[in-house]
């Protein structure tokens, strides 16, 4: 019986419904995160219900990946690359210091108005166009304090 079942899966051309649902988990978590900017327990519970998965599995998977947040963050999450290449190119450290001063926060903190969170990451595959940073889903390359300043003003609606 089991062998027959395995054989039918092997020849079926598509994963089982259960497998297909599970494979939607990463996508579902992205959608769930959009609402509040991070994954609330409620959101994860809804994902679990919709996909027919235990909540613990949803949490376990979500907590594995760094693009899912379990805590609230600013509306704009600034991630400056301080990997080796960006550091060597003499720009990353200056850039991080500059943003810290402009926003008055340390790395890992969020501005009091909830607008900006500052983080450092390693390698956004822009080593040839460093320094580089990401703000939410957008990538910005060859950054200088000047164009960071313009960017921050623009995002803050100043």
């Amino acid at each position, binding site marked *: 019986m089991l062998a027959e079942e395995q054989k039918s899966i092997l020849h079926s051309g*598509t994963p089982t419904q259960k497998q297909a649902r599970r494979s939607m*988990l990463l996508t579902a978590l992205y959608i769930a995160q959009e609402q509040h900017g991070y994954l609330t327990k409620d959101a994860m519970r809804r994902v679990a219900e919709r996909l027919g998965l235990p909540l613990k599995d949803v949490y376990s998977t979500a907590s594995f*990946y760094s693009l*899912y947040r379990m805590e609230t963050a600013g509306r704009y999450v600034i991630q400056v690359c301080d990997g080796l*290449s960006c*550091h*060597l190119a003499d720009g990353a450290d200056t850039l991080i210091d500059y943003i810290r001063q402009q926003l008055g926060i340390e790395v890992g903190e969020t501005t009091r108005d909830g607008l900006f969170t500052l983080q450092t990451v390693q390698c956004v*595959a822009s080593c*040839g166009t460093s320094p580089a940073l990401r703000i939410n889903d957008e990538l910005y390359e060859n950054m200088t304090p000047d164009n960071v300043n313009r960017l921050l003003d623009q995002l803050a609606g100043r």
Partner: protein
Amino acid sequence: MAFERILLRNVGRPNSEKIDTYLEHGGYQALRKTIHEYTPEDLIAIVRKSGLRGRGGAGFPAGLKWSFMPKDSEVTKYVCVNTDEGEPGTFKDRLLVERDPHSVIEGAIIASYAVGACRAFVYIRGEFFLGVKRWMKAIDDAYARGFLGKDILGSGFDLDMSVHRGAGAYICGEETAMLESLEGNRGEPRLKPPYPAQVGLWGQPTLVHNVETLACVPHIVLRGPEWFASIGTEESKGPKIFCVSGDVEKPGNYELPLGTTLREIIYEHAGGIKGGRKLKAVVPGGASTPMLTPEHLDVPMAFETLSKAGSMLGTGGITVIDEDACIVDAALRLSKFFAHESCGKCTPCRVGTQHLVDILQRVEDGLGREGDVDRLLGLCHGIVGRAFCPMGDAAVNPTLSSIKHFREEYEYHMQHHRCLVAS
């Protein structure tokens, strides 16, 4: 002599990502040729003959991988396009998928035809938002023109392709971790063997290839395996995109034959060391590969020669470190990356990388304790060969290789409680 641009021939054109631009410049001709002239067996023979090896880091012969896929046409088979480029110092795949996605799609369709896959999954790094959009648009356009879907170009061959966005985990570049992630799980590697060609996605035989590897395939089909094999060295054939970054005048992607020396890449193409300073060390193939020193400048960038020199070709991501940089700091930054990205599945990697960072940090801060260098070496030997997947072996390379070549700099940090370079 300037080397003809093959993989990067389209990226500089306006609207290079569009299907019409690709078609204007000979796009999808290789697919037509494939379908009209070759059987799957022919293609496997052609790719074997070309000598193409994987461009994602491991360098496995592509034709051999294709031949491992079961020939049984009743079995459901898959192809996965690994676009999870996250190796520090590497930025070639992002360029290809953002600027010339159709070259990769064409390669993936040909590979799928050769191994009899019915579906291709593109797994793309979550951070590559533009890449996701470009891939999805390119796939839609390829469907609209009949290069994907049912009965491709009247051949009777069907193939579906879809994009799956990762969510920020370096380990998902490892092929079995990628399969786990595609299935919606934590991206923890699986035990090998069985290899994905036997048991892959949802247990089905799966061919996994890096973006740059697949981008080579249409050219091999159009211009022949002999042409491809005429480029490069004895064991490393074809063109390669070298990503040069760090302390060079002109960082960027340079497409050159495999076997080009580090000296030529750094000094002729990338404009030499920034500010005319002296070279100190080179990470030749991404963070996972052991550092080399100026005495290795004439080593050809090829699988076999780099391995003889004590390093690896890896992804071809060359990070150049000049004399003003602190080597302990460089090793620390690379090690921090691995400690952060360790998936946690096995203890040597999860705990070992954290200890490496702790010790490197105190040495860098001038707080090193007596015996710390040997302690670092001991830790490295405790991780190598004992981790579940190749990441553990990779994670020790920055530390091991920097101590091997620059032990005196570590000792200076310990004795003087400060950096040799800054003083």
